[in-house]
């Protein structure tokens, strides 16, 4: 032992603190309760009230502030997938139930909010007395999976499209007209719209909502293209991020990705990562549809090259943005990532009706899920069960928490 080690050990040895196990247990249970309350939804107001606590707690909590990160270098085949068992691998929050309620006879396109509630789209169909559909209306419905209570959101025009972010206090959606974002305030239960004045003549596409609350849009006018980001708080704050690209979007840690038009020889796009300090790094040429998950709601920087059947074995590959191999999944089927969180990636088999696989990035384990995975938020997973033949299908959704 060195002298310094000896001195430090002697110094510390005389400090004999008394512990408070009961206090730790009480405080630990309280924090768990807060997490579960917010995770399970509760009321919007309660969630909004508690979110500050969660953020403050997360600041010091290594498990949330600093995710463990993916286990690297895992190689599996689909045969390695173990069926996810209730009680062992997951806990059911809301058993499979039909979305039908109050005339909303279907529930589809279900997603999870950041506080674990379900946002689904319900269709209300009314019929003429003599038969035939009189009116079909689509409505967004917020469901508390713990109690099963449902609350339709007010209708809003222009029509609300896909979700960009489903937060604890606000929900953000694309709209089907113009370059605008529909914002739903869960505390006042009202809609509003944010709209920007962008270059005329361009055909704009909303790409995603970045972590810094800037919306990313890609516009095209003939051969010209622009990638811009615009503030949700200040509609005059519009920033051109790149031009001459075929797409792009932000990823965490102050970086963003630019896709340049496909190389005519390889037929695949070139991809570059831009960092906040202005440097750009081109990624190695990747095969396949690598953007599916990044275009989704995950914040985890993963790439998904999916080599197609080119004579070699099929494999599903997940890499980090730094190029480290996370998972190589050999398969006889065509797979693609479906949705994901920082801990899980759902992998969809070729037949979209088949149950999905769920890969635990931290544990390096692959599960076969009981149904299709529609959404993941943290450890919460929304499962869909589809019944009946194509064209006459009914759907049930189930909410589970992975252990």
């Amino acid at each position, binding site marked *: 032992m*060195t*002298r*310094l*080690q000896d*001195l*430090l*050990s*002697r*110094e*510390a*040895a005389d*400090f*004999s*603190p*008394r*512990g*408070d*196990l009961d*206090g*730790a*247990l009480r*405080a*630990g*249970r309280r*924090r*768990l309760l807060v*997490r579960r309350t917010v995770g399970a939804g509760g009321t919007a107001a309660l969630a909004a009230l508690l979110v500050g606590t969660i953020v403050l707690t997360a*600041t*010091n*909590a*290594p*498990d949330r*502030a*600093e995710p*463990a990160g993916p286990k690297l270098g895992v190689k599996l085949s689909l045969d390695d997938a173990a069926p996810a068992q209730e009680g062992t691998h997951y806990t059911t929050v809301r058993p499979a139930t039909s979305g039908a309620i109050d005339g909303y006879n279907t529930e589809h396109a279900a997603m999870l909010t950041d506080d674990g509630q379900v946002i689904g789209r319900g269709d209300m169909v009314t019929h003429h007395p003599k038969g035939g559909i009189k009116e079909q209306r689509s409505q967004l419905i917020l469901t508390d999976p713990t109690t099963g209570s449902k609350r339709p959101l007010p209708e809003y025009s222009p029509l609300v499209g896909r979700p960009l972010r489903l937060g604890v206090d606000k929900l953000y959606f694309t709209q089907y007209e113009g370059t605008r974002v529909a914002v739903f305030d869960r505390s006042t239960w009202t809609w509003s719209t944010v709209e920007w004045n962008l270059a005329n003549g361009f055909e704009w596409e909303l790409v995603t909502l970045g972590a810094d609350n800037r919306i990313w849009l890609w516009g095209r006018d003939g051969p010209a293209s622009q990638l811009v980001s615009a503030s949700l708080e200040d509609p005059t704050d519009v920033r051109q991020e790149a031009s001459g690209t075929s797409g792009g979007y932000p990823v965490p840690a102050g970086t963003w990705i630019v896709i340049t038009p496909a190389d005519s020889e390889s037929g695949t796009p070139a991809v570059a990562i831009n960092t906040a300090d202005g440097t750009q790094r081109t990624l190695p040429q990747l095969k396949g549809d690598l953007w599916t998950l990044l275009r989704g709601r995950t914040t985890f920087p993963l790439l998904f090259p999916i080599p197609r059947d080119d004579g070699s074995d099929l494999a599903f590959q997940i890499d980090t943005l730094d190029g480290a191999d996370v998972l190589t999944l050999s398969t006889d089927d065509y797979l693609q990532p479906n949705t994901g969180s920082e801990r899980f990636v759902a992998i969809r088999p070729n037949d979209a009706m088949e149950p999905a696989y769920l890969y635990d990035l*931290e*544990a390096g384990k692959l599960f076969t899920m009981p149904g299709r995975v529609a959404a993941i938020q943290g450890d919460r997973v929304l499962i869909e069960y589809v019944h009946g033949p194509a064209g006459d299908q009914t759907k049930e959704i189930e909410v589970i928490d992975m*252990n």
Partner: protein
Amino acid sequence: MSSRDEAFAEFYSAAHAQLCRTAYLLCGDPHRAADLAQDGLIKVYVAWPRLTRQGGEFAYARKAVVSAFLDSHRKRSNHERPGDTSGSAEAEADHADAVADRATVLGALIELPQQQRACVVLRYYDDLSVRDTAAALGCTEGTVKSHTSRALEHLRNTLGEHADNLTALIERSHR
């Protein structure tokens, strides 16, 4: 008591004193050290099922303690020097020869910037490798080496005759 509570209680008993001592060397204040350790253990309780699946409960707790120390230090006033909490250490310097060395070491330790202090405590009290220290601090191995090197240099200058073999430690810290 649930099985989770029972398992956690066993871990608490085993880990509490060690975490407190690490925290004490970091902050120099026994009361604050107890608070840091308690908070780290509460975080372990919250994350318990996942930690027991993956292992590393103690490393997680230690990381929580170090993070809480560094975070709280950042929030403290610039006027509040860490050394201000070491009145007891200075007083001990007047005690018998047996405690003189320790008082000198603790006094020198708490004069270090918090990152350097954390590196010294984790490397030479908790006996962590450069890699594990970097993981606990959430920084690179290079940062750990440079912090440790500077810290040992400072300790050597401060401790004088007590630092005979710190030169060797400084050389080792570069490896």
